[in-house]
């Protein structure tokens, strides 16, 4: 099959699914809707595989499949095609999206089977995938922006899926508006790039990107990348625009798995990787990205340690893990960012689905204080979740270990990196191990705190199969990117397959020297040891001595309170931006519109009316007064004639 047709199938299959489910949204058969939607995504997945196979067949230097459907916008020098391009970077993305997407669709069939709006749900989910594929495959920034906003829109719809709940609807709106802030910056970034490069196509921008880094701040490259990065912070939940992601957990859990863990939130990372030559030319932006990434790692991890809602913990974990990806981008390790993006998609989707399974089993209970000891009720969920856990805390040889380790190594060795960044990353890994172990312990291990009237039960096969598949991927997913130091001692010396695959898509960091092997081993050992120790501490605290956490919390009282309340960032945004804005708007309306502009016009009309009534009073019907005017007129006339 030729590429345009495959590409069209890849893109349009979910869209057709959306249309079918959207038009029969009133039918209440959840299973049929789920089957239709899942089929659509599977078709998409198959096309993706076929395309990637074709891509692999191409010589590495020209490994690009590009398809142009029609000219979208063409005004003067601005020419934007509805064009899509598949290269090694987007190949990873589409496989993850359609693959993980298929699994999550499958999971949703079981999860949503009792929901009256299932058809609508699947329609939205399909629409999301359609937009996500546009985002990933688009050959230019505006086309990417189409998907970029589209996924935000679907995220809005899915977060507010149970719209009768005011809070959930508000969470959806919060997500959209926060994303919009990022999108506005994204637009500005596009404008700057277009005006300095004259094009918005990725390939051309990357070609035109200056080869020597510029240190100026007001330089178009720095400004443009900076604005694009702000756009990415919106979509990928980084400081300062991360606030929407925890609230986004109001949506159905598979949505959190698909959109808010595996795919959409990684769009920012993907965009930066897409434009890596450009970002490399702007070291200032890179520095900011790395710092923001590192700070987000810490922020997400610390808040994650204190939350009681199973999904909120995972959400802050996602924020934190996304921070790792940005840290990687910031130090120039784009390959590592993509790697972590992929492994994170596996294990975080797994954990979200696992939490979905738990929530399903617990009849919509999300508070981990009311769980515990679920291991014996939900064996499959527990074991799959277990593999997700080992992957995320970075135990070798599971997926997270390789990707996180690569990021940390780059943070240490890259000329764009810094020892402090490595230290923050390692600290983050330690905290991750702590809060993840806490989550495991409180949910699955220890004594059961399940209320008496709840009877947890294992989920149906449609839900457990995706869990198992993702569990396996969490184990083996990291093996495609085994670092050289480890590969060297393994039998058969496996190559770093991922690095090889991305070789032509990613520009090497200028001035990068080969890693020092000993140091790398030491760094690896330190981070793994720290993670294991911290996991043991957490295990001890939450399983063996359950009264300890409270003591600790009391000991660090105020700090705990600040962290537990998420650093009061939401409150600060409300007090500092939103409420004043609403108040100011009301003031504008009341004082400027109603009282100033209108009153001014009234004054003008009053003056005119006053003049009119003045003239009217001259004409009062008294004949003698009229006669007086006549005589005065005569006087005036005569005076004029005489004086003249």
């Amino acid at each position: 099959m030729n590429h345009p047709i495959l590409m069209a199938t890849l893109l349009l299959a979910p869209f057709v699914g959306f249309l079918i489910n959207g038009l029969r949204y009133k039918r209440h058969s959840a299973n049929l809707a789920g089957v239709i939607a899942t089929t659509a995504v599977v078709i998409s997945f198959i096309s993706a595989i076929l395309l990637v196979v074709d891509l692999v067949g191409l010589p590495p230097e020209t490994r690009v499949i590009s398809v142009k459907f029609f000219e979208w916008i063409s005004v003067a020098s601005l020419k934007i095609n509805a064009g899509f391009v598949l290269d090694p970077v987007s190949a990873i993305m589409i496989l993850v999206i359609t693959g993980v997407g298929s699994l999550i669709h499958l999971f949703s069939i079981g999860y949503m089977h009792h929901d009256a709006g299932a058809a609508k749900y699947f329609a939205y989910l399909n629409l999301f995938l359609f937009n996500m594929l546009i985002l990933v495959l688009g050959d230019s920034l505006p086309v990417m922006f189409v998907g970029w906003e589209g996924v935000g829109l679907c995220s809005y719809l899915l977060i507010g899926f149970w719209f009768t709940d005011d809070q959930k609807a508000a969470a959806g709106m919060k997500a959209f508006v926060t994303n919009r802030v990022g999108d506005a910056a994204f637009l500005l970034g596009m404008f700057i790039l277009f005006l300095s490069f004259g094009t918005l196509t990725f390939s051309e921008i990357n070609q035109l990107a200056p080869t020597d880094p510029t240190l100026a701040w007001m330089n178009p490259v720095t400004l443009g990348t900076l604005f694009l990065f702000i756009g990415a912070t919106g979509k990928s939940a980084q400081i300062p625009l991360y606030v929407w992601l925890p609230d986004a957990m109001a949506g159905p859990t598979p949505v959190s798995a698909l959109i808010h863990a595996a795919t959409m939130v990684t769009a920012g990372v993907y965009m930066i990787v897409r434009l890596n030559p450009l970002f490399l030319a702007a070291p200032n932006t890179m520095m900011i990205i790395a710092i923001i990434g590192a700070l987000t790692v810490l922020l997400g991890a610390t808040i994650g340690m204190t939350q009681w809602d199973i999904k909120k913990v995972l959400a802050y974990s996602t924020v934190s893990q996304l921070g790792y990806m940005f840290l990687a981008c910031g130090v120039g390790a784009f390959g590592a960012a993509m790697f972590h993006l992929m492994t994170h998609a596996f294990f975080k989707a797994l954990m979200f689905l696992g939490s979905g399974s738990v929530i399903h089993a617990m009849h919509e209970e999300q508070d981990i204080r009311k769980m515990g000891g679920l291991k014996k009720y939900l064996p499959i969920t527990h074991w799959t979740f277990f593999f997700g856990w080992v992957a995320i805390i970075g135990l070798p040889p599971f997926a997270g270990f390789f990707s996180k380790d690569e990021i940390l190594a780059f943070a240490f060795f890259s000329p764009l990196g810094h020892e402090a960044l490595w230290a923050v990353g390692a600290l983050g890994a330690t905290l991750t191990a702590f809060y993840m172990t806490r989550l495991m312990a409180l949910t699955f291990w220890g004594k059961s705190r399940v209320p008496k009237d709840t009877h947890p039960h294992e989920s149906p096969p449609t839900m457990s199969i995706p869990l198992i598949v993702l569990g396996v991927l969490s184990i083996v997913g990291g093996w495609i990117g085994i670092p050289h130091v480890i590969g060297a001692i393994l039998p058969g010396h496996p190559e770093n397959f991922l690095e090889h695959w991305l070789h032509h898509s990613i520009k090497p960091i200028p001035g990068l020297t080969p890693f020092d092997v000993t140091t790398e081993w030491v760094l690896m050992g330190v981070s793994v040891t720290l993670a294991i120790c911290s996991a043991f501490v957490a295990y001890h605290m939450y399983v063996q001595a359950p009264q300890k956490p409270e003591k600790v919390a009391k000991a660090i009282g105020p700090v705990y309170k600040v962290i537990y309340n998420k650093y009061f960032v939401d409150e600060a945004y409300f007090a500092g931006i939103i409420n004043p804005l609403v108040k100011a708007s009301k003031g504008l309306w009341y004082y400027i519109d109603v009282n100033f502009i209108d009153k001014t016009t009234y004054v003008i009309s009053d003056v005119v009316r006053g003049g009119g009534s003045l003239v009217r009073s001259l004409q009062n019907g008294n004949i003698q007064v009229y006669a007086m005017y006549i005589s005065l007129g005569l006087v005036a006339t005569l005076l004029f004639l005489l004086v003249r």
Partner: protein
Amino acid sequence: MLSTDLFTQIGLGHYLVLSALLFCCGMAGVLLRRNAIVLLMSIELMLNAVNVSFVAFSRYLGQQEGQIMVFFVMTIAAAEAAVGLALAVSIFKRFREVNIRYFEHLKG
């Protein structure tokens, strides 16, 4: 410059000044009096003032047309007096007074 000429040589100017004075008297009456009938009289006065100047011009310019005009004016004045008095009568019937202000009520 008051020369004796002014008193001894009676010319057109004298008649015109006389006419003007009469006219102003009439106009003052129109403007100031409240009684409608006195008002009508003042109008007659003004018309007469005009007549004086017409006749004076007729005499000093040697044209008969001035006198014709006076003739017409007189007739019109008579007619006007008749109508005005009729109006005054109807006003009086209604208000027992002929104040000019009541003419406002003539409007529909």
